[in-house]
């Protein structure tokens, strides 16, 4: 029976063997030390050309924009990345031409806002090695890694071209004899995650949707956290049921207020729909887009300057109001 089992033809970009990850993890310094640094230093130290990167959040919600800007500014190339509802983050990394391979579940689009013409150009160029997955499959791949097992059985993907272009494998359940899809653990080299609250050690709490960030933090070799607010360790300990990411997985912590801008930060500020529309618009004109990127990313010394250029506190206050009035 097993000779009829299908395998996806997509490339597997990362190691699947949990014993390799275990050996890495064993050597990590697990002391509860301060990991406070700057975005610039974190990217210099923890993101290298060729690394496989996973971004937390949900495309335009709770996304680590400051770190992605810095990755672009520092000119990282040949990255791999997981397109797990990758919307504005995919748009940014495409703008920086930072990657050459991608596990794609949701890329090039910005949900209801439309499609990024530049991200499409990049993905249509033939220069990107793409392996297909579903959002669920990528979530479960992170979960397998976070659980410390080499794969998880799932019941989606079967029978489709998404499966055929993935690196999943059909297998038979040892108990029911029924077919399931096995999806391999995904261990990113670096995870970049933006959270609501973190202490200096990297214990993190998140409000609203968690997406896959609990698992991504555990799955990744290195973890960079940006946080809206640095809080005292006592505050974490006051609500231990709310802690999503434990300190020992984390390598860098940076306080970046409005760090998800122009994305939404649940409970704090809404997305800047005007700015995202501008992105989609300028991408259609090569020269305009170049100038736009120069202004908003390359010429900015840091994320604060980007915020300043896009309306500063006045704009942020508007987005805060929008979030709370829910309009």
């Amino acid at each position: 029976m097993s000779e009829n089992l299908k395998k996806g033809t997509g490339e597997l970009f990362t190691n699947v063997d949990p014993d390799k990850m275990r050996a890495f993890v064993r050597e990590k310094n697990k002391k509860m030390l301060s990991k406070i640094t700057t975005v610039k230093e974190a990217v210099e130290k923890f993101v290298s050309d060729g690394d496989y990167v996973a971004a937390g959040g949900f495309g335009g919600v709770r996304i680590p924009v400051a770190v992605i800007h810095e990755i672009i500014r520092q000119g990282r190339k040949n990255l791999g990345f997981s397109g797990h509802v990758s919307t504005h983050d995919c748009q940014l990394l495409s703008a920086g031409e930072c990657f050459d391979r991608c596990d794609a579940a949701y890329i090039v689009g910005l949900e209801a806002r439309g499609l990024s013409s530049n991200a499409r150009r990049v993905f249509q160029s033939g220069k990107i090695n793409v392996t297909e997955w579903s959002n669920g499959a990528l979530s479960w791949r992170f979960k397998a890694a976070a659980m410390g097992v080499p794969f998880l059985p799932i019941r989606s993907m079967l029978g489709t071209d998404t499966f055929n272009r993935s690196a999943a494998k059909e297998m038979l359940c040892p108990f029911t004899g029924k077919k399931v899809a096995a999806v391999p653990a995904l261990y990113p080299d670096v995870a970049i995650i933006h959270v609501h609250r973190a202490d200096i050690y990297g214990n993190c709490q998140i409000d609203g949707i968690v997406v896959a960030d609990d698992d991504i933090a555990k799955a990744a070799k290195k973890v960079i956290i940006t946080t809206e607010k640095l809080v005292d360790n006592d505050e974490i300990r006051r609500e231990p049921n709310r802690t999503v990411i434990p300190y020992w997985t984390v390598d860098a912590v940076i306080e970046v207020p409005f760090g998800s801008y122009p994305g939404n930060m649940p409970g704090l500020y809404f997305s800047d729909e005007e700015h995202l529309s501008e992105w989609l618009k300028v991408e259609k004109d090569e020269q305009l887009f170049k100038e736009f990127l120069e202004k908003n990313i390359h010429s900015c010394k840091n994320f604060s300057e980007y915020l300043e250029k896009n309306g500063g506190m006045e704009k942020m206050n508007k987005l805060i109001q929008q979030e709370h009035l829910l309009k």
Partner: protein
Amino acid sequence: MTRYNNMELMITIAARTLEDGAIVLVGTGVPVATAMLAQMTHAPDLTILFEAGGVAPLLPTMPISVGDSRTTFKSLKATTMAEIMEFCQTGMVDYCFLGGAQIDKYGNLNSTIIGDDYKKPKTRFPGSGGANDLASLCWRTMVVTPQNDKRFVVKPDFITTPGFLEGGTSRVDAGLPKDTGPYRVITDIGVYGYHPETKEMMLLSLHPGKTIEDVKANSSFEILIPEKYDMTTEPTDEELEVLREKVDPTRVIIGRG
């Protein structure tokens, strides 16, 4: 002149499909408008889920993202995408709503690429997102889409999301959960279901003013036309009022026509 446009018609018909007490997983745009309309009319106990982690929010307005703050506004639970997908995998979720650039007669959907070279596609679309999971794992897949012969194709360039695959029993044979699959396709021309055995798309009801010719002319594959089919019941004034004044007062969705 009709009292409603195509979008209003499609949303209204889709909303009627959702029975009170069902659990539905929706995306932004038409799906969430549909679920909100159902909730505000005949199905107050409809439970709405979002794949990013929002469970049963008290939606103040339509979300712009499947994960934005509104999807967890006064929600019962805010969680992970994996947990939402696992709710679907356990059989808890009755309906999901999907779309795509192409659909075939078995309800298979393409939202990945157009072109015959996967490595260098003519057009790259987002890919599955959660669609493949939802269509695999929820009981009933709903598609609401304008109908034309470029979208209703004989062979999609890529099957992103499973319908009945090659028809017959092929969906279950592939390992997908029993008794799941495409349920309704609601277009600007009619409402379609699927033949119980062959699983081919089949006309269920024709919209007011539309003809069998419209059905045929706007599909590249042959849609089964049974001897008996219904005429679609038009949106009521109450449905239209709720849709226009409560669900989508700024006409973001219904303004599309």
